[in-house]
């Protein structure tokens, strides 16, 4: 199949998990013999990445009052570029998330192609309700994407039910296919632990955007309780922009000793992968998490996970076997489960090995791509 993939983020431009998802999926589809062109944001025009053709369009330095206006400008640039490529003979469009919906709606009709739309999360879930005009616009675009699409994919089974309820999506066109992971990346490790903790410290890792959705507020409240039981613990928080990091660092340092909580900001992938593998456990305290790729990355690094009982984390974590669950938005629960693991690192190592087995078995990109290609086939009425 010849696929035109639309995504507003694609490596090296990464904001959330969509870039990693599109990259992993496109590479696996290419390995399986499909031809994938990715149309995305960025400067640099056309480039080739292991069989994938990446076309980048740049709206330029423009002052947009909000992200929706900017997304429309990006969509129109994408349409212009895609129509120049129509001689490529694409068979299907696969659009990712609301930002590409206007482009997908125009291209579906212009190129007369079936449309598959992946909803990576919902606005309702991300911000906890549709309370502002901007959120309303984004939610409408999400609905429009699901309405126009021939097939809709969610990345989690709970998210599937949420999307069905929010956007009245017919069952027969709604699917869930999990995120995948490139486990091979986790075999090339560097010694990075010394940069983040002393060798006698127990390293507790948090990775993610520093925002309410990711549960950082509750994790920070749990830190004093963790350090009270385990003074030898070291909390390492990876991710977040400068402003968010400054805010949360101030909160954390007002509650616990400065030298025990290290906010690293963004880390390059090579370092992060090694850090996952060298941490004693990873905490994923999300309030809302359609999938939870951080949990998979931790497991790929053979590190156990303490994660909220929400979204796909409910199913990725098998309590006592590859990690532990916590109640959602509950600092006491986060602290007690983290402390349980820190008290028995041997158990943690055993759970880490089990986690690795699980990701190798269930979440390789090749498996994800096979399932996705099956949905493409349905959109094309091949079966």
């Amino acid at each position, binding site marked *: 199949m010849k696929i035109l993939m639309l995504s507003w983020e694609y490596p090296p431009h990464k904001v959330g998990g969509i870039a990693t998802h599109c990259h992993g999926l496109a590479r696996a589809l290419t390995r399986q013999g499909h031809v994938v062109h990715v149309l995305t944001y960025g400067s640099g025009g056309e480039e080739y990445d292991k069989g994938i053709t990446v076309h980048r369009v740049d*709206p*330029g330095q*423009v*002052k*947009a*009052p909000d992200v*929706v*206006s*900017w997304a*429309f*400008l990006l969509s*129109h640039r994408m*349409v*212009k570029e895609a*129509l*120049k490529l*129509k001689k490529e003979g694409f068979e299907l469009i696969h659009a990712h998330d609301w930002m590409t919906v*206007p482009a997908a*709606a*125009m291209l579906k*009709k*212009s190129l*007369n192609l079936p449309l598959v739309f992946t909803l990576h999360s919902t606005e309702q879930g991300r911000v906890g309700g549709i309370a502002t*005009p*901007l959120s*309303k*616009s984004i939610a*409408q*675009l999400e609905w*429009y994407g699901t309405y126009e699409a021939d097939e809709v994919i969610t990345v989690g089974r709970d998210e599937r039910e949420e999307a069905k309820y929010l956007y009245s999506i017919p069952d027969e066109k709604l699917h869930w296919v999990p995120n995948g992971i490139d486990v091979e990346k986790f075999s090339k490790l560097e010694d990075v632990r010394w940069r983040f903790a002393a060798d006698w410290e127990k390293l507790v890792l948090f990775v993610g955007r520093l925002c309410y959705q990711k549960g950082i507020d509750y994790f920070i409240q749990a830190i004093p309780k963790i350090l009270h039981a385990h003074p030898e613990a070291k909390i390492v928080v990876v991710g977040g922009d400068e402003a968010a990091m400054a805010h949360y660092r101030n909160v954390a340092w007002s509650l616990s000793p400065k030298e025990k909580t290290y906010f690293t900001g963004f880390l390059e992938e090579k370092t992060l992968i090694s850090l996952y593998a060298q941490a004693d456990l990873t905490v994923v305290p999300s309030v809302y998490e359609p999938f939870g790729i951080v949990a998979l990355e931790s497991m790929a690094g053979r590190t156990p996970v303490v994660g909220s009982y929400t979204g796909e984390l409910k199913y990725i974590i098998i309590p006592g076997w590859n990690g532990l669950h916590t109640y959602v938005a509950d600092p006491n629960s986060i602290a007690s489960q983290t402390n349980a693991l820190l008290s028995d690192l041997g158990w943690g190592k055993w759970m880490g090995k089990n986690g690795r087995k699980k990701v190798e078995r269930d979440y390789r990109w090749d498996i994800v791509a096979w399932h996705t290609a099956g949905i493409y086939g349905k959109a094309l009425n091949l079966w």
Partner: protein
Amino acid sequence: MRVLFLTTKMQSSYFESLGRFLAGRKVEVHVICPTHGSMEGIHVHPVHVNLQANDGFEWYMLLNVELVRCAAELTKTYAFDLIHGEEWCAIPASIACSKLLEKPLVVTFHSTEIERGARWPHSDLIRRLEMDGAKEASIVILTHAKTSEVLKGEVPKEKIEVIPMEGDWQLKVLEVYGRLV
């Protein structure tokens, strides 16, 4: 000759007058616009925005999605020779249609965002769309001479035609079409 007009105005007096004139000269004119009415001698294809827009800019952009979708549907029946878009608010769809059909694009500006004061939050985006339209068009028609001062240095002089809406202006537009088709 068959021409496709794209506008976001419910009743564009510019296209209505031009279309009526062209129809009399054996030019088949189609217009896609958010209208409820009809225009004498012109094939009118109405489109509507079914989503609620947060502001005017968003409404125009949603309307452009509908303009493109409607044009794509029309191309199954009609072979157009030329696309003519009016003002910044129809530029994204006009460019898309020109690329889709691989036909020349004419755009008309009655004024630019700078002339209007450029004082609202979306002004920078609007200015960008105006420049996109001017860049992609084969000919840029200006209905006021002063607008050419604003575009000086940004749009090649040979692409600009100042045709005020007076006298036999419609004939001059037809001559522009004739050069492109």
